């Protein structure tokens, strides 16, 4: 398969169109703007719709409209814009509308800055909107994954009739790497529940309002059941040198790449280090964590945020192994050396503690 050099943000759009996406509504924001720009070029050529909305609030509600009409549709933004979209994301989850939202994260809170950070974990993975809902969250760490996980995102969105978020930091969105699109272009058929202005779809209704308390409870339970199935079937993670790993490094997105580089060096220094990189942040790959806990002495979570992913890791391990934490924020990136030093320190402490325990 021949590859071409491409930005992660552009790969998202091309993969989306190959996956049958025919509508993009968005509002420009660094570092996600290339997604809107590529969509403005390619969506009309592919026979689709591109609208630059007046705000992220309008964009997400256009997404609600496009999805209601049975169109595979997407939007893209970064932290501040995703905050504005939370209302619509909750409505879409409530109305069970499939859609794909790319969050190319930047620094926060507030206006923060435009450097790559991972501080959107909570608002995306835990659901920043109101009510009992979840979004499926995919976290690519390379341009190839931007393409591959976008295709998966549309598939999962349709399968679960739920918003799917591609959570990528500014690095993954902005960088260029060789990428291949091995998939054939697919179309999307009219979902049976859509409201498309046709005789067949006239009886359909898109709605998230359930005034009757029992009715809403049934609805929320049905959503929960759906999420449970997703938890059983869709959790994904990449393991890197984990077979004999005593220290498991955990990170997603660009951090996953840094951890791989650190692992190579740590192993050269004789440390049994591996990487567990969650690809789905919801559903969280709990089973992989529990399996690696058999061999591992400790887990080290590295984040470009102030302790968000680490909460899910602790929940997954449920106290069975110590969880250490290294974080950089503000757009700073944990350097190779910084992580490596931490790993060495951790290895020493772990050995010392075991020695102490054996005394």
């Amino acid at each position: 398969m021949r590859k071409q050099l491409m930005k992660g943000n552009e790969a998202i759009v091309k993969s989306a169109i190959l996956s049958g996406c025919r509508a993009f509504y968005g509002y420009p924001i660094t570092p996600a703007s290339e997604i809107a720009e590529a969509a403005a070029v390619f969506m009309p050529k592919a026979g689709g719709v591109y609208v630059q909305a007046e705000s992220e609030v309008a964009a997400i509600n256009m997404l609600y409209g496009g999805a209601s009409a049975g169109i595979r549709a997407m939007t893209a933004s970064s932290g501040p814009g995703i905050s504005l979209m939370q209302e619509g994301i909750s409505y879409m989850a409530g109305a069970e509308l499939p859609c794909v939202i790319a969050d190319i994260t930047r620094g926060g809170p507030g206006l923060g800055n435009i450097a790559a950070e991972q501080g959107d974990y909570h608002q995306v993975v835990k659901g920043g909107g109101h009510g009992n809902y979840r979004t499926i969250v995919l976290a690519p760490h390379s341009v190839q994954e931007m393409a591959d996980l976008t295709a998966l995102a549309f598939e999962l969105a349709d399968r679960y009739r739920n918003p799917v978020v591609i959570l990528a930091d500014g690095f993954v969105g902005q960088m260029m790497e060789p990428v291949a699109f091995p998939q054939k272009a697919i179309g999307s058929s009219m979902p049976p529940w859509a409201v498309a202005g046709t005789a067949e779809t006239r009886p359909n209704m898109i709605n998230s309002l359930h005034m009757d308390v029992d009715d809403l409870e049934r609805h929320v339970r049905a959503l929960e059941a759906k999420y449970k199935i997703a938890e059983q079937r869709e959790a994904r993670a990449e393991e890197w040198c984990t077979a004999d790993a005593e220290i498991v490094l955990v990170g997603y997105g660009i951090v996953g790449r840094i951890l791989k580089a650190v692992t190579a060096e740590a192993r050269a220094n004789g440390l049994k280090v591996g990487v567990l990189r969650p690809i789905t942040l919801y559903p969280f790959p709990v089973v992989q964590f529990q399996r690696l806990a058999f061999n591992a002495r400790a887990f080290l979570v590295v984040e470009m945020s102030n302790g968000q992913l680490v909460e899910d890791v602790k929940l997954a391990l449920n106290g069975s192994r110590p969880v250490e934490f290294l974080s950089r924020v503000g757009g700073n990136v944990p350097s190779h050396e910084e992580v490596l030093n931490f790993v060495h320190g951790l290895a020493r402490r772990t050995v010392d503690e075991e020695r102490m325990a054996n005394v």
Partner: protein
Amino acid sequence: MSSEHVTSAESYQGTTPVVPNEAEKPAGFSPSESADPTLDYTVAHGRAKAFYEHYERKDELQHQTHYCPGCGHGTVHKMLARAIDDLGVQDRTILVGPVGCSVFTYYYFDVGNVQAAHGRAPAVATAMKRSRPNSIVISYQGDGDLSAIGSAEILHAANRGENITVIFVNNAIYSMTGGQCAPTTLLGQKSTTTPDGRSAATEGYPLHVSELLSTLEAPVYIERVALGDNKQVAQASRAIKRALENQVRGLGFSLIEVLSPCPTIWKMTPVDAQRWVHDVMEKTFPLGVFCDRTKERTPQPHALESSAAPGTLPKAAPTLADIPGILGVAEENLPEGNAHAVVSEHDIDLQVRIAGFGGQGVLLLGEVLAEAGLDAGLEVSWLPSYGPEMRSGTSNCCVRIESETIDSPLVNSPNVLVAMNEPSLRKFDKSVRPGGWVIYNGDEFPANCARDDVHVLALPFTHLADELGDTRASNMVMLGALLEITGVLPQASIDAALRRLVKNPRWVELDERAMARGRELYKESLLGGVKCVPMAIQT
């Protein structure tokens, strides 16, 4: 009305039930028994077909709407339903409902129904109409929904001239939430949040939505009507039908603002509330047509093509087989991998940081390198700094070109730094690996930046580019020097990369000369006794 309406009228013979379940509830009808059964009466005004027969909102109340007695919403619903009937568009209609008293429109209208978030119906409607242009999309909104929380969405949908119909029911109050002040509340009008009456000093003035939107160039028809008396009701009905017809004809954005009574919150009898619309509300909100461009507009063809399959896109969409080509990802359009494969006895590990001011071609230099690396069958990555510095200030990018899979695209310690000016040099010179290279664009290398463990090639590359005819080729002169120093990438790969990235042949020619000049300069610097030695790029 008559001619269209007769076509949908049911024939009624004597005691034949008009409403199917009439027989089940004979007490439900007031007396008409006095009529001579031999006379042939026909239904002239009855429940529109666009309404459901029963409302499944609750087990009880299947025959009544949820609206309070005398509420204007029901009257407006009937006008809209009749217009849908008259225009024969029931199957094509999508009704986007708001948040507010009319949140339950989907229980009443037998059309495609979508319930939208508060104020967002015009955004929802925009997307639905764009993707399903053959549908008839109606955004039904109250004054809290449209003129307060949704003021941005309505303004921009109108300004884009979306081919939708907006029904805006203005009762000058937030009714569903119990009577709070709305943007449309009249001066002096009491509400639960303006207990002493609305004051211009603190709440501003009543918002004139129709007048405001009429200042835009895109809308095709905007009219304010009222439910204040029989005549006004008839005019409102005509206006609503016209607004819908405009959409059917593909003319563009139409909005009908309806001044509508809310007897419950206004604390009036329905009849008094109706009079208040006429006598009081209308003084603040004058009735009339504020914008009518129906004659200037050309109907959009897809809206008139009855033969077009409903739900299809207006223009012929490309086939799926064409999509990869359109996206530029079709296998046959891509460069051949390993076109000019590098054979090296060493593992290649080239980590380059290129830094300069915005506009100096920093990012393009990196792109050519990365693209050439890919052409040479190597693993590559390109990572920019991004944001405002793309326009001014410092700009930099990192390129990795390797034999093995690249773990991280981040470059902390480059083995080559291309510094296109002094600030960039000062920012990054300490990060260069011992034994690495600094290629610097300047008349002389700043003395206090000198390191004895790196090689330096410092030349006024910009002047040299000027000699070639264009300052903007400085980056390519520096690239030429870098290629000569590192010796990793074949010139054929560079040429191929340049042709993919630079579309203008004049620039390709200049860039090629610039690169050749850069290579010469490095060789000349060796002959001139400059202390710099080609470095074997290896791990």
